[in-house]
């Protein structure tokens, strides 16, 4: 890894919003800003490292208790603002998750205080926004691992990711996965090349049909004006695409890549439906 996890997220949040601080009362690990993109005022959210975090196991860009509840609160705020005024779904504000998270926080305090519930509330907030017509867009600029990604980003209508070797979307870090599955890291890499869902390479992830777009940007570590403009345009397009589609996650099954790699999902679902209708 050429850069510490979470710092790229911070850089891109600042580049896209012009802001770099949490909202009043929020911990320093969650950056939130309302910024115009295209015709919309989108809410951007990002989880970043906070070495001063109250929870010792959530200081390096992990999604912990405070991060999860803050995300939930800030996303629910957008939903509430939209329902209090009498608005058509078309003007439901976009919500954009900038994702560069190490994972969920691995700590005893977290388990004791039911982090599973904290993460659930954030995922629910994003999903509720999506179901109410808010375009929810995720931009993976660095890492998106496991529970951290389930909490912050995986409920989006559209997921975009940089085409870059430091972008890793996966269920478990390579070293930990090697230990648990009793394989070497080299073996995992080899397996990943043969078996797409196991790969740590975002280009293989793109084959799974879950990604809306893989973005080729010049030097993702240092967002320059031209690349920022490029990414903004992609976000605007993704928002429009989300608005034109449904509010569920069905596009993850109907994309061209999904038709190739997720045949078993499609078949299982079709069989369940066929037998459900007869039962």
């Amino acid at each position, binding site marked *: 890894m050429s850069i510490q996890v979470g710092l790229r997220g911070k850089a891109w949040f600042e580049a896209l919003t012009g802001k770099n601080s949490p909202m009043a009362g929020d911990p320093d690990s969650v950056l939130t800003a309302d910024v115009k993109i295209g015709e919309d005022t989108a809410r951007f959210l990002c989880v970043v490292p906070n070495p001063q975090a109250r929870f*010792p*196991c959530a200081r390096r860009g992990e999604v912990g208790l405070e991060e999860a509840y803050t995300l939930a609160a800030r996303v629910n705020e957008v939903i509430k603002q939209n329902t209090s005024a009498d608005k058509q779904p078309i003007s439901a504000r976009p919500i954009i998750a900038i994702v560069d998270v190490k994972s969920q926080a691995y700590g005893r305090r977290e388990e004791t205080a039911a982090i*599973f519930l904290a993460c*659930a509330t954030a995922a629910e907030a994003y999903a509720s926004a999506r179901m109410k017509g808010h375009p929810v867009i995720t931009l993976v600029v660095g890492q998106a691992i496991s529970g951290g*990604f389930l909490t912050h980003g*995986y409920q989006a209508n559209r997921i975009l990711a940089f085409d870059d070797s430091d972008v890793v979307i996966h269920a478990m870090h390579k070293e*930990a996965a090697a230990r648990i599955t009793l394989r070497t890291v080299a073996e995992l890499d080899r397996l990943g090349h043969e078996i797409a869902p*196991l790969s740590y390479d975002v280009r293989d992830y793109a084959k799974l049909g879950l990604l809306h777009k893989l973005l080729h940007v010049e030097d993702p570590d240092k967002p320059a004006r031209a690349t920022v403009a490029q990414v903004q345009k992609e976000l605007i397009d993704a928002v429009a695409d989300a608005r034109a589609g449904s509010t569920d996650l069905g596009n993850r099954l109907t994309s061209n890549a999904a038709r190739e790699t997720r045949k078993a999902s499609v078949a299982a679902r079709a069989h369940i*439906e066929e037998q459900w209708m007869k039962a």
Partner: protein
Amino acid sequence: MSYPTVIPEFVLRQSFIELDARARAQSLMDPGSWRELVGPFDRIESPWLPEQGIAPQFDDGCVVLKGAIAGKAAVVIALEGGFQAGSMGEVSGAKMAAALDLATRDSQNGKKTVAVLLLETGGVRLQEANLGLNAIAEVMASILALRQHAPVITVIAGTVGCFGGMALAAGLSSYIVMTPEARLGLNGPEVIEQESGIEEFDSSDRALIWAINGGEQRVAMGVADELVLDDAQKIAAIVRSHVEAGLPAVHRSQQVDLYRERIRALDTSRQIDPLTLRETWGGKTTVSKTRKGVTR
């Protein structure tokens, strides 16, 4: 003189934990009311396991029964903890999500259908990694869609418990039923020890594990709803009562402000004694029992 023979109820009970996923699911449904969907005879297996030298299971470790509970339309979806630790793969996840989505569709068309999830699972099946992780995200989305119409009731009985990404699915449920043997947590003790060191969590300390993740603790601190002994009839009765109760007025996972405040109030300078959370969080249940907003 002859004495009456009294056989303790505990001895006569049928253990739920000793049943496999299929038998557990069947035990919850109204007798004769159910059919299994995409069962083992359909042979829809994982396409990813054999090439990694791992024996698949004909139902990919996920049992789907459609029928009735307490006379109401219901689908029970059970993960088999004995197969790959009940982990979520592409096919098992697709079966679960599809069943939830069909329950939602029926509910939207006027036939309200509840879902009962039997979660005996370590989370993502690492041999299917990204498809397993996405499957969990899709299941979570499907739970939230169904929850707008009908309750989603999660039962965690043990011995695997409910960990990993599926703990988020449990967290989204309308009600969580646990036995004392069961555990619910995001990260298992071994993973915490591995990532954060043995000081943070000694995974060989069984008492500590249950003190934090065990059913009694989760219910007492108010993040799960019912503690029930390992007795198939009792568990079925509890599930029936929640099916009949219908949706809570508010779901626990909607109570962000309440829990955010609770986290703010924690002293993080040292480890948190789980027992203190029974006093400060528990007793005042956050789950209303009925739509009409009657709180315990």
